[in-house]
């Protein structure tokens, strides 16, 4: 029997395979290797793991020719939200080929991103279910955000644009709000995400009292590989972290598990910064409001106290004036009583006086009468002595030379004498 060359044998295998498996097949498998070659072709390795996912039960090489890859790559990334990468479960339409030199290989003609999406969603669901079963799913969400949240530990890649955007937005806020930011660098895409983010979390944990919150951010478009953020260990670490975790890992599609366990999920680093600024603004507003109300309340309190004083002093002066009125009233009454008493006394005195006067009045006429009688007696006595009275009775008076003649011898012959009668005088010459 003639021996075959290797090439001939491989050729036979190739012929048989091509004959037996001429069709294309939809294949479910996991990618274990993805390598884009310089010529535009993409080389893959497919694997199948056993049920507990520990050991491989099947493995095959695959290739996407440049012409096909040019079309499939953007379509897959757009639809699945991630690039083809190891660990991804894919549904691909393949042809089976065998090459004499390169051996067994699967040529990829098409890929169904919906399958991958579904698988990722399933994985996320499983992780979430496990977190829930552990009772830690909402632990981070249940943390109260500190009122003052401005000491921020950032997990990001130092070179990523996202970190710069974040710092700009945060530190150059329009309100002069203070923020202390420190970067804890980590790899933000690819296979090392889980490990390096966990290391960064550990570093923050070591000085947890120096920080108010953890912010996990990265820039990047919708097509970035976020599979690293969909792991149980990372999600569990974040869920149980003692500080609130805020994410802004730059994607528009489904939330990663990390987003779901984080305290607050934001789409971009800029949005995360804006959130922090808003939170501080709320704290500032609260401070402002309580400050204002303390001031206003103190002023109001003083005003009330002033009014109380005023009321008191008004009441006091009213009371005082009442007392005064009462005093005045008493005084008036006193004066009245006094004047009353005075008048009474006066009347009494007057009466006494009158009585006295009466007695005097009665005494006077008696006395007068007596005096009059005395005077009458006196007058009668005087009248008895009056020459005129004697003249009227017929007596006469003779004067000679102006002197009363009492004896006839007092006159000489030839002398003129005057005889005064009661009425008239007689002149005669003595013979």
């Amino acid at each position, binding site marked *: 029997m003639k021996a075959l060359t290797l090439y001939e044998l491989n050729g036979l295998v190739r012929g048989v395979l091509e004959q037996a498996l001429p069709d294309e097949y939809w294949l479910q498998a996991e990618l274990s290797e993805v390598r884009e070659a310089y010529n535009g072709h993409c080389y893959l390795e497919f694997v199948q793991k056993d049920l507990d996912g520990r050991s491989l039960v099947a493995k095959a090489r695959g290739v996407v020719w440049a012409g096909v890859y040019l079309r499939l790559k953007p379509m897959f990334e757009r639809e699945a939200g991630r690039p083809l990468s190891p660990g991804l479960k894919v549904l691909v339409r393949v042809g089976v080929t065998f090459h004499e030199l390169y051996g067994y290989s699967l040529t990829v003609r098409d890929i169904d991103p919906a399958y991958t999406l579904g698988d990722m969603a399933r994985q996320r669901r499983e992780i979430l279910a496990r977190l829930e079963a552990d009772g830690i799913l909402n632990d981070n969400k249940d943390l109260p955000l*500190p*009122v*003052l949240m*401005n000491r921020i530990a950032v997990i990001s890649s130092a070179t990523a644009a996202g970190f710069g955007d974040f710092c700009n937005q945060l*530190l*150059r806020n329009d*309100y*002069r*709000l*203070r*923020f202390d930011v420190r970067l804890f660098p980590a790899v933000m895409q690819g296979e090392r995400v889980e490990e390096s983010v966990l290391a960064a979390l550990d570093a923050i944990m070591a000085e947890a009292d120096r920080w108010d919150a953890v912010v996990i951010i990265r820039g990047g478009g919708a097509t970035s590989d976020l599979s690293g953020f969909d792991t149980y260990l990372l999600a569990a670490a974040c869920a149980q972290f003692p500080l609130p975790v805020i994410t802004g890992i730059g994607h528009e599609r489904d939330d990663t598990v990390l987003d779901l366990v984080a305290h607050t999920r934001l789409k971009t680093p800029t949005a995360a910064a804006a959130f922090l600024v808003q939170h*501080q603004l709320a*704290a*500032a507003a*609260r*401070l402002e409001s*309580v*400050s204002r*109300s*303390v001031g206003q*309340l*103190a002023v109001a*309190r*003083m005003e*009330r*106290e002033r009014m109380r004083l005023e009321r008191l002093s008004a009441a006091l002066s009213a009371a005082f004036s009442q007392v005064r009125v009462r005093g005045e009233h008493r005084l008036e009454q006193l004066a009245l009583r006094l004047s009353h008493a005075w008048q009474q006394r006066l009347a009494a005195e007057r009466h006494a006086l009158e009585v006295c006067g009466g007695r005097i009045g009665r005494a006077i006429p008696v006395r007068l009468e007596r005096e009059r009688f005395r005077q009458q007696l006196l007058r009668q006595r005087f009248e008895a002595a009056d020459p005129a009275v004697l003249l009227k009775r017929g007596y006469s008076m003779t004067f000679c030379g102006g002197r009363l003649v009492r004896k006839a011898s007092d006159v000489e012959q030839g002398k003129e004498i005057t005889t005064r009668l009661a009425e008239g005088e007689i002149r005669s010459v003595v013979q």
Partner: protein
Amino acid sequence: MKKENLTYEEAMARLEELARRMENNETGIDRLAAELKEARRLMDFCKEKLYATDEEIKKILESDEKE
């Protein structure tokens, strides 16, 4: 109340307590000035934590220029 180790939240809680006391007329007029002074001190403390100083802002702007 001791000033060292005072947290922002404690300061805010105390401030709100002072405001509440004033609101409910619990502050005696004798204590009013003292409590107002305390409130002032707490406000300054909170503001210091909340707002950046001119120096810090200058530093941020300078670091921007270097980039």
